[in-house]
């Protein structure tokens, strides 16, 4: 019997080429798009980062956290602090992301000792704790918050374009890192853990090491999203950045798109972005709708849109896994 193992299918070659072309177009975005579209795309980049990072943790690492907003808030706060200390804005943004990413390493050591629901709620308590401690900072002035004054030095168009490029670069960097990780040795470990943690451990997969990598990546990504978000909204209010609503959004995007798939959360983020654009103005009804859709997917289509499409039609647009041809 002859067989071959292939990673690149004709489909994924075409699709990856398409992605490359699209990224090239996006790279010159601010030069060709209107101000409104540029802003919208920056928002979308942040959503895609959030969805992909939450999925890295939950979908691949098997760790559901309802407290990832701790890193969103800390990323934004670190940027505010650094910028206040006189560090140039976009340099401060990068340092803030690196700092919070580094801080997540010892935090992960502690939190990863917890299992399942304990980890989930433990992370939330961490977020609440960070929220109230940050609010004690005189610069933040409690719930009143503060603003990113360094942005005043930029012309609005320049700030818009720079933030866009920063967002695009961070999105490519973070998703690229996840992609490379998934294709490498650690990716095989992570996907084995996703499918069955105990079985993976029993064949020698280093479960804890793999989870630690996902935790730090997800924390770094959320810090990036938080720092980007504060450069788009300018004002920093603790409850807006440390709020549980972020978890609702991330959960929605990752779950609806497809937990444990690379492409799914991107689709989920685009869908969430569209829903917010169309229905966001309806306020509470919109949030109820998000909850209903997320619940429906959890109950009836737990692998999400992309997970369903992948198994149903055997498509794989990005070459993360392998195909066995008999």
């Amino acid at each position, binding site marked *: 019997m002859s067989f071959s193992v292939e990673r690149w299918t004709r489909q994924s070659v075409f699709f990856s080429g398409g992605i490359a072309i699209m990224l090239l177009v996006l790279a010159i975005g601010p030069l060709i798009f209107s101000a409104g579209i540029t802003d919208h795309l920056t928002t979308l980049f942040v959503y895609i980062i959030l969805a992909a990072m939450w999925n890295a943790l939950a979908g691949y690492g098997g760790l559901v956290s*309802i407290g990832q907003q701790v890193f969103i808030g800390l990323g934004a706060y670190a940027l505010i602090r650094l910028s206040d200390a006189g560090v140039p804005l976009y340099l401060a943004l990068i340092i803030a992301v690196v700092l919070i990413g580094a801080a997540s390493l010892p935090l992960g050591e502690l939190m990863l000792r*917890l299992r399942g629901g304990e980890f989930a709620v433990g992370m939330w308590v961490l977020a609440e704790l960070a929220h109230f401690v940050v609010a004690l900072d005189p610069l933040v002035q409690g719930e009143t918050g503060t603003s990113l004054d360094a942005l005043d030095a930029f012309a609005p168009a320049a700030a818009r374009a720079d933030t866009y490029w920063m967002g695009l670069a961070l999105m490519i960097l973070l998703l690229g890192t996840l992609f490379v990780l998934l294709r490498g040795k650690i990716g095989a470990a992570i996907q084995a853990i996703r499918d069955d943690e105990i079985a993976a451990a029993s064949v020698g997969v280093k479960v804890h090491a793999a989870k630690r990598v996902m935790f730090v990546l997800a924390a770094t990504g959320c810090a990036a999203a938080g720092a980007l978000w504060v450069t788009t909204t300018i004002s920093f209010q603790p409850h807006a950045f440390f709020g549980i609503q972020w978890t609702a959004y991330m959960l929605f995007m990752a779950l609806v798109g497809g937990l444990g798939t690379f492409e799914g959360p991107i689709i989920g983020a685009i869908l969430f972005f569209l829903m917010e654009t169309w229905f966001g103005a309806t306020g509470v009804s919109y949030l109820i709708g998000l909850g209903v859709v997320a619940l429906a997917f959890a109950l009836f289509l*737990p692998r999400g849109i992309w997970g369903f499409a992948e198994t149903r039609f055997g498509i794989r647009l990005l070459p993360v896994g392998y195909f066995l041809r008999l």
Partner: protein
Amino acid sequence: MNLVNQVLQGALLGGFYALLACGLSFIYGVMRIINLAHGSLAIFAAFLLFDFANDTNLSPFIGLALALPAMALVGVVLQFTVLDRSLKSGPLIPILSTFGVAVILDNGMFEYYGANSNSLGPAIGDLAFNSWNITDTLYVGQLDALIFTTAVVVLGGLSFLLARTGIGRTIRATADDPAIVELIGVNPRVVYAVAVAIAMVLVGIAGAFLGMRASFAPYDGGNLLIFAFETVVIGGLGSLWGTLIGGVILGVSQNIGAEISPSGFLIAGHLVFLVILIARTFSTGSILGRLRLKRSAA
């Protein structure tokens, strides 16, 4: 002296936390699910009683007698529509689905009731503020004493139910191994429904006292869930009497924290919780750890 009083008030607050937490602990003990909609359901129960008190002008205690069967029904519905299906799809899905339920409930109540804070305090008259003074600065509120006593009675009753009755034994056996009890003719789904119904009755009682002792608003469910969860973890996951110990530790820490700074109430509670949570993973030989092992059947 003020500090002593704060500790006393904190310990009494612990009784409320124990009531709030035992339903969460119970569902976890039986089904291994942390119900993230727990706090929102307590708010829901408080609103049920609030509507009843407003519409009828009868005592909330009469309302509670009617609300408890309603909450049990909510539990049965929750089990058969959400939890049962979630359990089949692996350990992650119950976390996601109960979070979804919480989002729907919170925003649904906000849409229906608005942002205002409500209270059952006015409906219970003197009980809301009468107290026994021990010294000039030391006092025990009558409502707080009632809540603490109720917590002890409820925990005792629950322990008795689990240890001495047929349904209690069935619940414990199902918690141990749902596949095995099926072999002897027990339907785990029905047992789970009973367990969730019991938990929702407990949530109903907690919601009633929540409304009587303080004000509540549609988005308070999240905080309640955190307090309940902290109580459960401090006392030892799955341990019923542990929730009373956990509640007292949490309440005392919060009240001491509040003495230090206005936001110290929450910060101190969260800190104590995280320290105990992490410390617990390093050692199982603590007093709380031993309690947990002894009670793990519950």
